[in-house]
Structure formats: structure tokens, C-alpha cells
């Protein structure tokens, strides 16, 4: 979920390469500049994906060589109630994390975009979770929410809940922890975007007599549209593949109450050693994840990316 933006600095075409062959055009760097990245991508992304697709048509428990098994894994996947439950749970988890994180991140981001000093101090405190690793965050919350020794057990009202053991609320506990971790990141996106909005728009609106709420809904929100999309894609795809937090916090339990699809794949593969079937689940996740981000970008016209600053 923590997306990193790649800032590629193109080599400056000022000085010609010392022993470079003469070229017709010096405007673009050679296509070979792509080679390292492409090789990396091919070796660590495309090749494994191909192998997983291959494995999904085999039966392999880790010994010897995978035995081709035709479509057996896929037939099993279609009939597997546990897989269906895991996917439905994943969907619930995605929707709830999105619905919880987006408004909070948006509001805090827009608030933090102000130039006041107290806001700078508060928001730098607020971004602290970004500095912690996922494993540390999950362990921290597991300990805070422990039913016997957790901090919550010493607090009024909260002590009546068993956040990690009650099968009805444990999924929302996970949503809370994931949100706690990632809201700061999305806040940062919104803060940056909100600062890009030209001040003149607000001045004009003030002259026209628009109040704060009116300004938020007619200027800020529309101009943040693409940031909302970016952040939503990151959230949806991120929560779709959430794994580490849940593995450490609940291990997918109690029972199967937090066993979302990626965890189901992991348990099938690395606890049950059914690599073939786990690969079939992985391929399904791959297709759904890619389809999801494609769908979100398409439906929102993200790819058109026309500028909004003319007030279009």
C-alpha cells in the first residue's frame, strides 16, 4: 500500500558520450537505457508470474518435480467454499478500509495543507506511523489489544471488548490497525495535492461570498479528484493484498474470521505445502488485482489526465 513514486531523472543530453557512436538524433537516450529495468522486471515480475500460472496446472508438494494435473486445481478452486468465503471477506475488508480511510485522510490532508505553524507540528506528529515497519505496528497493536495484558484492558469501556478474539469484531480491529498505519500516507498525498490548488481560486470565491464549506465542496474536492483516484487505487489494491499485518496480528484467526484471500493462499502453500493449488489462488488474485486497478482507472477517466487548473 505504501506506494513509492519513481522519479526518473533522464540523463542530460548536453555533453555527447565520450566514445559514443555518431547518431542521427541526440534528443532521446538510447532504448538500451531501459534494459536494466526491463531485465529486472522480466526476471522478478514476469517470469515468476509465468511460473505461477504454470504451477497452477500442476500438483506439487515441494518434492521432486511438479506433476501436471490439468485443470484439477482450477476445478477445486471453483468449488472451494473456503476460497469463496476468503474472497468475500477480502471484498468486505477492501470496502471498509477504503470507506474509513478516505474521508479521514482527505479531511486531515486538506487541514494540514494550511501554512499555520501548529498544523505543521501536529501533522509531523501525525505522520509518525509512516516511520514504523508493518511488522512492528502489528506486534504493537497485538500487544495493546491483548485480552489479558493489553492497555485496553486497563481502560474504562474498552475493557469489555476482546478486540482480537471476538469473531464479530476482529475484522474491524484489523481495519483499524491497517487504517492507523496507512491514513498518514494518504493524508500526505492529499496535503501535497491541496497545496497545489492556486490560492487565487479561494480568493475569488471569498469575493463571491462563498463560505468555507462551499469552498471545500466546489473548489477543493473537485480539484482533488485525481488524488482521490490515485489514493483509492492504492488503498483498494493495497488492502486487496494485505498480508503481513493480518499474519502477525491474528494469523487469519480466530478460526477463519480474518483469513482473507492472500492469507488463504499463504496457508495453503506454506503450511499445507499444496503449491499447485496455492498457485491457482495466486493467479486468481493476480487477475483480480490487475483487473481492479484497470477498472478503477478506466471508470474514473484517470488515464485522460487532463489538467484541471483551467477550471474544466
Amino acid at each position, binding site marked *: 500500500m505504501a506506494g513509492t513514486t519513481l522519479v526518473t531523472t533522464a540523463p542530460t543530453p548536453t555533453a555527447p558520450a565520450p566514445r559514443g557512436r555518431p547518431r542521427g538524433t541526440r534528443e532521446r537516450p538510447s532504448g538500451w537505457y531501459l534494459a536494466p529495468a526491463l531485465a529486472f522486471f522480466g526476471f522478478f515480475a514476469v517470469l515468476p508470474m509465468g511460473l505461477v500460472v504454470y504451477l497452477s496446472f500442476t500438483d506439487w*508438494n515441494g518434492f521432486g518435480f511438479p506433476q501436471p494435473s490439468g485443470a484439477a486445481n482450477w476445478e477445486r478452486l471453483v468449488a472451494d467454499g473456503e476460497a469463496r468465503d476468503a474472497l468475500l471477506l477480502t471484498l468486505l475488508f477492501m470496502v471498509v478500509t477504503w470507506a474509513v480511510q478516505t474521508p479521514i485522510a482527505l479531511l486531515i490532508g486538506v487541514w494540514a495543507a494550511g501554512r499555520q505553524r501548529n498544523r505543521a507540528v501536529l501533522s509531523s506528529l501525525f505522520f509518525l506511523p509512516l516511520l514504523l515497519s508493518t511488522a*512492528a505496528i502489528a506486534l504493537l497493536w497485538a500487544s495493546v489489544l491483548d485480552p*489479558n495484558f493489553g492497555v485496553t484492558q*486497563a481502560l474504562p469501556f474498552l475493557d469489555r471488548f476482546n*478486540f482480537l478474539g471476538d469473531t464479530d469484531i476482529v475484522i474491524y480491529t484489523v481495519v483499524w490497525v491497517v487504517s492507523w498505519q496507512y491514513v498518514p500516507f494518504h493524508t500526505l498525498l492529499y496535503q501535497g495535492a491541496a497545496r497545489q490548488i492556486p490560492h487565487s481560486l479561494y480568493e475569488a470565491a471569498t469575493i463571491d461570498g462563498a463560505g468555507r464549506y462551499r469552498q471545500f465542496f466546489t473548489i477543493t474536492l473537485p480539484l482533488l479528484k485525481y488524488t482521490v483516484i490515485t489514493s483509492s487505487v492504492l488503498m483498494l489494491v493495497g488492502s486487496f493484498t494485505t498480508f503481513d499485518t493480518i499474519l502477525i496480528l491474528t494469523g487469519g484467526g480466530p478460526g477463519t474470521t480474518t483469513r482473507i484471500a492472500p492469507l488463504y493462499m499463504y496457508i*495453503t502453500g506454506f503450511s499445507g505445502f499444496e503449491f499447485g493449488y496455492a498457485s491457482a489462488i495466486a493467479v486468481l488474485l493476480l487477475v483480480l488485482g490487475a483487473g481492479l486497478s484497470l477498472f478503477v482507472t478506466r471508470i474514473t477517466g484517470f488515464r485522460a489526465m487532463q489538467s484541471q487548473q483551467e477550471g474544466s
Partner: protein
Amino acid sequence: MSSRRLTRGAASAGALLLAASLVACGSSGPGGAGGGGGDAAQVWALQDTVLNPIEESSISRFNEASEAGDAELATFGNDPYKQRLRVALSSPEAPDVFFNWGGGNLKEYVDAGAVEDLTPLLEEDPELRDSFIPSVLEAAQLDGKYYGIPMRGVQPVALFYNESVLEAAGVEVPQTWEQLLSAVDALKANGVTPIALAGSQSWTELMWIEYLLDRVGGPEVFQAIRDGEPGAWENPAVLQSLQLVTDLVDRGAFGEDFASVGYDVGGASTILAQGDAGFHLMGSWEYVNQLGQSPEFVEAGDLGWAPFPAVEGGAGDPANVVGNPTNFYSVAADSQHKDAALEYVTTALDDEQYVEDLVAAGDVPAVAGVRDQLEQGENADYTTWIYDLVEGAPNFQLSWDQDLPADQATQMLTELQRLFLGEQTPEGFIATMSAA
């Protein structure tokens, strides 16, 4: 009360943060001397701060004395080990000697033709065979052939209890299931959790059903399941013991919170030590754990231990035990250094110094006649009790999750956790496992 909890919570949170950052810095590669395969036989074992030095010194003694070749230790964390061993055994990077749990876990490797049959060596050398406790050696016996030699202590599961909690509730240590049930009611009435259970880790729940099925139906019932006999799960003894478990859960024996209590973080053990629970069914390592984490509790003599109660009318011998008989060293069939590997497992593991080191570390080695040595050692009360328990056991059932093939074991643990949560019925459990 609540402030104590708060400080403890905060302290453990801090410790966990620290641990997490340490873990993040660690590597998943082999620890120990590792490095190049070279000419030495590779001995693979688990990382263990207490055992690794003992294993190291055993190997260096072997290297000095043996002419068959040298050996070298490489160690791994528990879960990475299982994954790595599985892939490595069918590759040129295979170890020559490898640590395992015996039973069905080992059977998968044997079926793949990856494990050397040690039967001829044991038959040639009856003295070696007789130097181990028979019920323990049998855990690495598959289809009448021996594939592993015990390399550390026995780990039976026992019923631990907090003496002062039982006293306060006027409860005797239960000999039978009925007595356990009335003890549960009395403890509950006294306001404590009757039985501590680290239910977020399903293997702790497994211990209950393992013992109950053994007491109700005898060891044959599970052996049929393990051997994959059709309909083996549908044996009425399975249903009866599952019902005993659900009765116990419904009775509130494990309290309300067990589903999120962990064992690795010391949850269940601490509840027992603090006097918030009466009983705790756990492997024999619990004693060493308590000694390390709550020494004042052990030293005050409040920690008690007893065999699992008998079930009235059950077919199983109440002297049977379940747990991990021990861990084994096995030799890879494709080993490049087979002479050294075979010599190591047949000479180094009943070696006097090695056994002495294990005893000193608090282990109860699976070596026959070690009782005298245990009596001399520390914690003799406990270690001799464990030794007698195992030696007197007609059958030592290996933990089911190690004895079943990995895919079935994984599914069983899932269903079992759902059973404890009340999301699965005994009948549903059996139906699911029969279909698996």
C-alpha cells in the same frame, strides 16, 4: 491491579517493538557455521540458544574422533526450516543429516525416497537400539523400518496446575474426566479461569483432542486416521471426544478470551503463574518456560504437574501420552557424505557427554537408564517424573499436526479452531475431515 496491567502492557509493547526491529534485521539464511558445503557432512537443525552449543560440541568431538569425515552444523528458524528442508531434500543442496519430528512429517520424505533406512544399522547394533526408550524410537519407525535416531529430550504433554489456585477453590488434582469437570465448575465459581488456553495458536487446542481421543478410543483410532483408512474419522470415539471438548468449551472452562491468547508471547503461561487460571495443558517445555519467566512461581512450589485424567469407560490406557516423543536426526538417501553421516547418527547421539550436556540443559533425553543422572541434576522432581511418565507409557502418540500429511494437518487445525469457537460442530468437523 489495572495499573499493573497497564505497565505490563506498555513494557511488553516496548519489548515487542524492539524484538520486531531485531527480527527485521535478521536474515533467513542458515545460521551457525554454514557457508560452503565443502567436504563436510551438513547437519541441519533448528536454531535454539540452549541446544546449539551442545550440538556444536558434539560435532566437534565427532570431527576429532572420526575417520569417516567431518560434519558441520547449520541452523534455521522453525517455519523457514520446514519450507527449506522440503525444497532442499530433492536438490543438490540437500543436507546429509537433518532434524525432524518423526511420524507422518518424516513419512512424506520417506515416501519421496529421500531418507536412508537405518534399520540394518540398528539390527547390527542392538546395543544402540536398546539405548533409547522404545516408545520414543518407534515414533520414527514407518512400515517397520527405522528412519531416525532420537537426538534430544522427550516432550510429552502434561496437565500443569497452580497449586494455590486449586487450594483456594478446594479442588484436588483430577484423576478422571468427571473430577476435572467438577474442578472446572469449582474454579469458575471461585472467579478464576479454570483452564488457561492459548487459543490463538491452534496446536494448543489440538492437545485436548489428542489426549481425549486416546483416552476414549485408544491409540488405534488415530493410527487408522493417519494411515488413511477410509472412514477412520467416522469412528464413534472421534465424535465422543469432540463432544467432550465442546462440552468443556460450553462450560466456560477456557474462559471468554482464549481465542486471542497466544502461547509464544507467554500469554497462557503468565495467566497460570499469576493465579488467574487453575490448569494449563502444555508440553513438557512449559516447566522450563515458567522457570525462565516466572521463577518465583516455580520456586514457591505452586507449579504442579499431573498426567492427563482418565475418561471413565474409555478404551485407552490412562498411562498413554501424547506430544512430541522427541526430535530425530535422519540421513538423506542421496547424501554425498553418507559414511560420515551414518557414523555421526549412530555414535554421537547416545554419547555420554552429549547426554550429560542435554541433562544439564534441563532436557530429559530419550535415552534408557538416564534416570540416575536426572536424579543428580537440577529440577530432579520434575525431570524424573517426565522420564517415568514416558518410560511407563505403552504408547506415545506424536502430535497430530506432525503425524498427518501437511495439507490435512493444516485443514484439521483450521477446523479445530472453528470447533473451539463454536463455529463448527463435532459432526461438521468429522464430515469435513472425512472429505479431505
